[in-house]
């Protein structure tokens, strides 16, 4: 069990990020969905004592989710960087596999940070500034591939013309602009 945090310690004591792989944070995200008491128990403090560190439950959940999601970004980047820079498709595939593996091993964080509609979890609206929200590990590879001319439509697709910014807005627009 983690040592009990002292009042003057930082919020990182709550995230478990010092344990490296985000698994403890993932468990705590699930625990908070059940009760603050559960997360307090894992830290050997009472649920009300959590408010010595965070103004409200949403602030705690936000810290937990962002911390875990940052570990997600780091996992993707580590997988990507295990392959040489010139192997763009290999780097992208490695990132995709890391994405999947991370999602499977961190289901609560994955659900709360990417799907954001998790049964039984009342999640706050999160300000993602400074986090790995846009998956730079994967998008960066695609960016390089596009600059290198390695992204092109396969035979049999319509030939797309460059569309001005904002064209095609509406139902077909992705939720996440790349």
């Amino acid at each position, binding site marked *: 069990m983690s040592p009990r945090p002292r009042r003057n310690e930082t919020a990182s004591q709550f995230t478990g990020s010092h344990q490296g792989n985000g698994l403890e944070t993932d468990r705590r995200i699930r625990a908070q969905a059940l009760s603050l008491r559960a997360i307090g128990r894992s830290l050997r403090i009472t649920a009300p004592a959590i408010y010595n560190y965070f103004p409200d439950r949403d602030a705690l959940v936000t810290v937990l989710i962002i911390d875990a999601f940052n570990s997600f970004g780091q996992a993707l980047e580590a997988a990507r960087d295990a392959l040489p820079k010139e192997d763009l498709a290999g780097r992208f595939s490695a990132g995709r596999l890391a994405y999947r593996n991370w999602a499977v091993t961190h289901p609560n964080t994955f659900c709360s940070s990417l799907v954001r509609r998790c049964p039984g979890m009342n999640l706050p609206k999160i300000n993602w500034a400074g986090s790995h929200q846009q998956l730079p590990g994967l998008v960066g590879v695609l960016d390089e591939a596009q600059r290198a001319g390695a992204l092109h*439509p396969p035979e*049999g697709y319509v030939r797309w013309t460059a569309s001005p*910014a904002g064209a095609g807005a509406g139902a077909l627009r*992705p939720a996440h602009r790349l």
Partner: protein
Amino acid sequence: MHGLTALELYGYLPSFLGQSVDDFWRSEFEGLYPFIVWKIKGDILMKAILLNGSSEAMPTGEQIRTVLSDELRRAAGR
């Protein structure tokens, strides 16, 4: 990305990764590689499934290609 939409990207990815359209979408469909753009993927797959005339069968690459082409043509025409 420079002007590339997620919809366009889905058209580009199979050849970039050296996969057939069928293999790429099968892996996406089966959740082997959960990708970024859930709504786009869901829309494309659902339309392709409907095109396939079944609520369960995996659409073929050709059916997905047809749906993607139609969607992209509509997006470009807006």
